């Protein structure tokens, strides 16, 4: 650690190394985003409205392309609602019409009523463009770290600090 400070060449290399790790992660994220055509190809479940299928902290992989067929009833989709920043993961239960203008209605498996109440004021249905992906893959629990991080912000600082220290202390 101290030697790193004394040797500027090594310090620079370590800094670059740290940058490389961050940019690799970012590139992989954006790459996945391009492949799946979704602005957020991996999401973490934040609520229990789809239980028992999904619990809080589960990781979902999204796919937003329609190769063979349109997004259809029964699919679990992630959608955005105007005026709300957190996307919602619910099942598509009704579809009226076809194409981009089709009127879609969603419902959480664990909810009694459909999502009309969750939509914007005066909005009865969502459209295909509101959907940022259909759930295709599932890994349980792995995303719980992000829930912990957002609920306890000080953990973020601690983690970043530890990561920085580890990278700086590595010699190679």
């Amino acid at each position, binding site marked *: 650690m101290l030697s790193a400070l004394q040797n500027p060449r090594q310090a620079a290399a370590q800094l670059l190394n740290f940058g490389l790790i961050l940019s690799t992660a970012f590139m992989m994220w954006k790459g996945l985003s391009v492949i799946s055509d979704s602005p957020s190809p991996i999401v973490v479940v934040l609520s229990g409205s789809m*239980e*028992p*299928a999904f*619990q809080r902290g589960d990781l979902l992989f999204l796919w937003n392309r329609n190769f*063979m*067929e349109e997004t*259809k*009833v*029964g*699919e*679990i989709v992630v959608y955005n609602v105007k005026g709300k920043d957190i996307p919602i993961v619910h*099942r598509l*239960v*009704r*579809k*009226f*019409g*076809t194409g981009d203008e*089709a*009127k879609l209605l969603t419902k959480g*498996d*664990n909810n009694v009523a*459909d999502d009309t109440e969750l939509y914007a004021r005066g909005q*009865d*249905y969502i459209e295909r463009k509101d959907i940022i992906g259909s*759930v*295709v*893959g*599932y*890994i*349980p629990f792995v995303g719980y770290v992000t829930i912990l991080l957002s609920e306890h912000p000080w953990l973020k600082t601690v983690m970043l600090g530890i990561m920085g220290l*580890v990278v700086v*202390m*590595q*010699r190679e």
Partner: protein
Amino acid sequence: MHSTLVRAQNVFGFFTTVCFVVAGLIALSDFSWERKPSSTVSVKDVQVVRGRPHYYSTKKEEYAHIRFNLNTDLSSLFTWNTKQVFVYVSATWPSNSTGPRDNEAVIWDTIITSPSADHLQNIGPAAMKKLVKSAKGKSIDPSRGKLNLKNQKAKYQITSPTGKLAETDDVVLKVHYNVQPWVGMLTWTPQVDFGGWKTMKGGVSKAFTLPALKKKKEEPKKATS
């Protein structure tokens, strides 16, 4: 470097690698199980009535109340990686009598958990006790995939954005499923055979026509039942 930190890092790295490889193998094992689901669905009774979408609404819409018979054998969908199977019956109908069936709405659904996921169900304590007891000592219970419903009432009354539904022709009920794994890919009723995964045998009702609006005067007789 053989510091404690590096060792800890290596151990953690190896642990996560092993976890992901095992998870990947489990996910891949899905393809080794054959799936040959079958089901029959038929319409028992249909009524179209006028109603409001919710209590405070002034809008009047037509709602179809459908009763149906359902018989399924989805037992082949239950493997060690099955967390739950979501079974749903949808009604599909065309917007105009000559066009394709471009409207679809779920009228009934149910969640069948594997015994390993029973504790996650959102049901009362008595029902939970019964459910857990029904598969005591079994980690996989394929018999749960067998449903036999007679004269089942729809959970959701279908309507359409236009509010008109009476006398719609060419309505069809379809049975679908969605397999939720413990880890891996979510799968739905396949449209074509995919290796050992066969398409649903049956699962589509005969086309039927929604009746005309039910007259208010007929009500009193039925109300007693």
